[in-house]
């Protein structure tokens, strides 16, 4: 399972969720695979997709699924603590872990050297931590997510890109449609 398949399948498995996607290849792949109004592409500010997702989840009338890469999570590890403290019901934080900074040249991240995303999450206060490494596990696992608390999903993926397309929706339109989709 590669990044674009993991992001696409978990998004499709949670059709009521607003989807926040992290900067770089992940956004371009999600866009290339079929745009939806509930998709919010965060095209800069690496490391903040999870924080943006929490702010959305605490304000919007819909549940939120926020994707973050392993490299961007390591850039803002404090987010695990902050999001676990609030943990709004239905909030899903999905860490897409390919063990590398794929969008900046494929430099290895610490998760490739044994840093355990699930253990970091548990130590940070997340009570519901899942790990999916196949599409079947995503499809099956997503059905068992309850709306009561927040869930951290560790998506273990293989390095490599899917089809990409530059997100050419104007930022003001992305913001406006996120607001409409949140109501």
């Amino acid at each position, binding site marked *: 399972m590669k990044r674009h398949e993991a992001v696409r399948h978990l998004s499709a498995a949670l059709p009521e969720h607003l989807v*926040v996607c992290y900067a770089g290849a992940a956004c371009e792949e999600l866009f290339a695979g079929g745009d939806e109004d509930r998709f*919010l592409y*965060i*095209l*800069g*500010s*690496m*490391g*903040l997709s*999870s*924080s*943006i*997702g*929490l*702010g*959305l*989840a*605490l*304000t*919007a009338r819909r549940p939120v699924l926020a994707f973050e890469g392993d490299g961007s999570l390591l850039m*803002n590890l*404090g*987010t695990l*603590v*902050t999001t676990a*403290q*609030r943990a709004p019901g239905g909030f899903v934080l999905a860490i897409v872990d390919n063990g590398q900074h794929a969008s900046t040249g494929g430099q290895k991240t610490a998760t490739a050297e044994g840093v355990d995303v699930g253990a970091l999450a548990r130590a940070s206060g997340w009570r519901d931590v899942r790990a999916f490494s196949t599409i079947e596990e995503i499809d099956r696992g997503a059905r068992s997510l309850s709306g009561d608390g927040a869930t951290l999903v560790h998506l273990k993926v293989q390095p490599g890109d899917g089809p990409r397309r530059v997100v050419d929706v104007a*930022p*003001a339109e*992305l*913001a406006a449609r*996120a*607001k409409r989709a*949140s*109501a």
Partner: protein
Amino acid sequence: MRGGWTFAASVPDKGIAPLLEGLDADDRFIHVPCTREEEAVGLCAGAAFAGGQGVLLTQNSGIGNTVNALTSLIEFYDLPLLILVSQRGGEGERIAAQRPMGRATRPILAACGVSAAEVTDADGLENTISRAARERVAAIANPAAWAKILA
């Protein structure tokens, strides 16, 4: 907080400590204590994407941790943001390490498209909050001014 600024994200500071306690005690506000100021800007952005209005509360040194978020997130998506700053490093500052960032705070905000308003009393704060409906603005007050405003 007037004008719909009901979402707050903060990193603590002694100057605004009573304000943070007040936010926690008031059900009209959602207040999220953060580990670092950039994260807090992300939270305010998330609230804004959902149609809310986010306030960042921070010491001025924390402004240095917000630069990329203020530009590639807040400015890029043209999101509302109000910043309440406890300003250190001015006259009478006893910790020398506070002074460089004390000088750098306003130029950094200006470079990131955030107006800075020096606030010395409650009326000044009210005026700055009103301005935030039209532009991104930071209300900057030193600890003595915050003590007066929050008295």
